């Protein structure tokens, strides 16, 4: 018997709001322990939550970008459980009335387009962190993260392979990054993914018993963990056993999933409507306002780059993977004709320096090595044959080093390409006269020497001769 996996993902995305979901504390990552806390997020007696409107707006953005229905009224609920990193002993979340319902995420796997529907998107607060290894006989609690806003995005169990799961997650991350609601950093935990996974005989429409896999901190971990879990479940069933409904943790070092708690020990969270927060109304006007502010989404932009600008699929994919890169490209392209030449410069030169100098952070490239205007100018200089592609590389390095415009560099250093046939002809004559022996060899059939003559002419011309004209005149002179 063959089996197919049935996978649904639950993604938690930390929102890039300045403050926490229910108090004014900073939501920034990386402060000293408990620096970002106040009576509200420490759950002192008497405190009350006040909802961060920006977080709601971010949820609406995510909902609109995935085609979800934005609920006219949603409601927060309390999820009750005891743990030191949860100061109120309840998490304020949404339960029976989430802010977004339905929707879908589109992505491609092996060149084929897939759509996976969403169950819901809702807002909730993050917990703090327990630190167990800092002290010999005590655990410490850091509540900086307690109350940071999260979006929980739940897919239908429609993913059919680990590769699909990873592609779905990539597409979702890209969308959230485009919307500038989440930085998508899985290592730092600002994007977290849990999976519900079961197997069933291929072709069956029944769902098997599922396990929930947690602690997958990278795309690779998601794929590896799901592959491992599929194998494990198939082994269990093939061996005559049954899969137990449980939560399992992915151990990335050993590459196994381990049981964390089974259903018998599952919490009864005693959800009930949060009485400290009134129901949350979202007016059609508000939705419309957010809708107007939505950026073009990555899939749409990719299609446009291919269709309207005429870029190859690969280039479109690379350039649109980040919103700021795509924006940069478009800013430069505004004054050019040759998209492909510009694309090469962005992908090969600009992004190389961004990577080398680590200029990218979160959602923004901190400093572009050169402005899009200068880059466009450089490409223009090549297009109108002012400089050669080879000279352009030198000019580019100098643009990065000095910040000067390519025109200024070309002028200052006298790099303007010589296309004047008289000057080049003179150089050709000089070179051929100086190397009469090689001319004879060439004429006798040693074709490889052509490159040598080109090099010599360029040397005489200090590299500024138009290579095409050099080629033509050399050929004429040698024939």
């Amino acid at each position, binding site marked *: 018997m063959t089996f197919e996996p049935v996978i649904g993902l639950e993604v938690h995305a930390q929102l890039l709001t300045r403050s926490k979901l229910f108090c004014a504390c900073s939501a920034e990552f990386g402060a000293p322990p408990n620096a970002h806390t106040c*009576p509200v997020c420490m759950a002192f007696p008497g*405190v009350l939550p006040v909802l961060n409107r920006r977080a709601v707006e971010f949820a609406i953005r995510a909902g609109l970008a995935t085609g979800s229905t934005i609920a006219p009224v949603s409601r927060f609920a309390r999820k009750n459980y005891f743990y*030191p990193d949860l100061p109120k002993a309840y998490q304020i979340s949404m339960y029976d009335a989430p802010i977004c319902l339905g929707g879908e995420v589109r992505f491609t796997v092996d060149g084929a387009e897939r759509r996976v529907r969403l169950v819901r998107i809702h807002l909730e607060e993050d917990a703090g962190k327990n630190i167990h290894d800092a002290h010999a006989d005590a655990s410490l609690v850091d509540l900086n993260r307690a109350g940071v806003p999260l979006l929980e995005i739940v897919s239908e169990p429609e993913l059919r392979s680990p590769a699909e799961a990873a592609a779905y997650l990539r597409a979702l991350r890209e969308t959230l990054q485009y919307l500038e609601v989440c930085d998508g950093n899985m290592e730092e935990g600002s994007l977290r993914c849990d999976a519900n996974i079961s197997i069933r005989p291929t072709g069956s429409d029944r769902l098997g018993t599922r396990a929930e896999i947690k602690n997958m901190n990278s795309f690779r971990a998601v794929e590896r963990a799901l592959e491992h879990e599929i194998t494990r479940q198939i082994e269990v069933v093939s061996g005559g056993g049954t899969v137990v409904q449980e939560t399992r943790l992915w151990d990335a070092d050993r590459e196994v999933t381990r049981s964390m708690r089974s259903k018998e020990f599952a919490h009864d969270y005693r959800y*009930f409507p949060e009485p400290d927060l*009134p129901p949350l109304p979202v007016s059609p006007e508000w939705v419309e306002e957010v809708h107007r502010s939505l950026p073009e989404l990555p899939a749409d932009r990719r299609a446009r780059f291919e269709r309207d600008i005429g870029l190859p699929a690969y280039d479109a994919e690379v350039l649109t993977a980040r919103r700021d890169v795509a924006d940069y490209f478009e800013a430069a392209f505004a004054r050019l004709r040759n998209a492909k030449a510009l694309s090469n410069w962005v992908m090969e030169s600009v992004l190389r320096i961004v990577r080398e100098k680590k200029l990218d952070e979160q959602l923004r490239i901190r400093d572009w090595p050169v402005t899009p205007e200068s880059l466009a100018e450089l490409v223009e200089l090549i297009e109108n044959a002012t400089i050669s592609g080879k000279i352009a590389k030198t000019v580019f390095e100098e643009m990065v080093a000095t910040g000067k415009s390519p025109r200024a560099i070309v002028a200052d250093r006298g790099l303007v390409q010589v296309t004047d046939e008289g000057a080049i002809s003179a150089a050709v004559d000089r070179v051929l006269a100086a190397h009469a022996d090689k001319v004879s060899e060439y004429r006798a059939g040693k074709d490889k020497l052509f490159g040598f003559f080109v090099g010599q002419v360029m040397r005489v011309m200090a590299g500024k001769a138009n290579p095409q004209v050099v080629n033509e005149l050399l050929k004429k002179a040698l024939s």
Partner: protein
Amino acid sequence: MNVDPSSLTLAGAALRLSAREFTASELLEACLRRIADTEPRLHAFLTVSEAEARRQAATADERFARGEALSALDGIPIALKDVFLTRGVRTTAASRILENFVPPYDGTAVARLRSRGAVLIGKTNCDEFAMGSSTENSAYGPSFNPWDWSRVPGGSSGGSAVAVAAGQCLAALGTDTGGSIRLPAAYCGIVGFKPTYGRVSRYGIVAYASSLDQVGPFTRDVRDAAILLEALAGHDPRDATSAPVETPGYESLLDRGLDAIRIGVPREYFHEGMQPEVESSVREAIALLESLGASVEIVSLPHAGYAIATYYLIATAEASSNLARYDGIRYGRRAGGAATLVDTYRQSRDQGFGPEVKRRILLGTYALSAGYYDAYYGKAQKARTLVRKDFEDALARCDLLVAPTAPTTAFHLGEKLEDPLSMYLSDVLTISVNLAGLPAVSVPCGVDACGLPIGLQLIGKPFGEATLLSAAYAYERSTHWHEGRPPAAPRSAA
């Protein structure tokens, strides 16, 4: 000069302070002497902030000397139920679990009093976490009714009622979740006002049941209640359930009288088993209201009988969640010697909470549990809607409703302690008002054969505090019940 705080109202004291007849410090010292004399018998306070209060009074006197009084509350000694968080002053909620808890911030109500110059004299006793009707559930021992030391002052805000009735301060704040202001006001012969849910911020009061809790004043007369309510009321951006509505000038609206006021008398609130003197006093009061110009009709609240059960599901469900934060981790009592995290929780909470609090946490946890939610919490929410609808219907025909505050006068200490259900029934006439979120006031309307005060309850429309206050004021001006003071040496069964 020798000031007798028990003979003063807040408004009267404010006039004499601004006339410089006495100073805020003299007034405070008189209250502190009164506290020293009466506390051994009454136990109204858990903390008396003498030093802090003296500083505040001295500052108030400087303002009076400069002629820059901040408000009618400037220099007035006011006590706070010990569920109001006070920066730097211990706040226990009458529980062992917060025995040494000193808050890092002031709640909104406290901040409003402070900014108006009030002298915060101390923190009053109450039932632990405001759970109770007699103040006997305090972890620090009960308070005693100043009219009869063998009787309870009512609860849960018993200490605040006692302090005002006994002249230990001029006014006090309490909280009312199911009657916790009105019941002790009735039992102690003073005015207790519970505003509309959302009228006064809940920020900075120890939460018991979030959808029911409301802050309100205890005063000696209705004018004082109007003055204090005006200071407390108003939208607070820190409380998402506080209403963004204007606060009327309650004091200036007191004289509107009862002409054209339609009063409804809920049939269900005059039930069998009610103490006869309570019924007769309330009926006399209704007749007086009618003679003052109001029209009176009988109305029905058909779901009144479900109120107690509904309340004890919703309030305890919310409480079970609200009190989960007392886990011994960040503040409050932590059990020593626990070997594991779970033991830390268990032992801290076992040692920290009293029996009634544990009972309600268990009840509420059960009501929210998987498999029971629909039958208990879910059904209670539906019943709450019906109770609220009853009031909407009745108040569509009337401007306010009139009823007794409690079926009896103050009962004896220990009388109901072993029988929680009969204790819960003391709130039978007040509890629906919280479920419906309405404003209500208890004013003195008589005494029983033992000389114990009886309370008249007026219930208003949402945010109809002004009408409620002017009706209560019209009644009060035609009677002398509010002028009664507890005897200096009351009889005691002891």
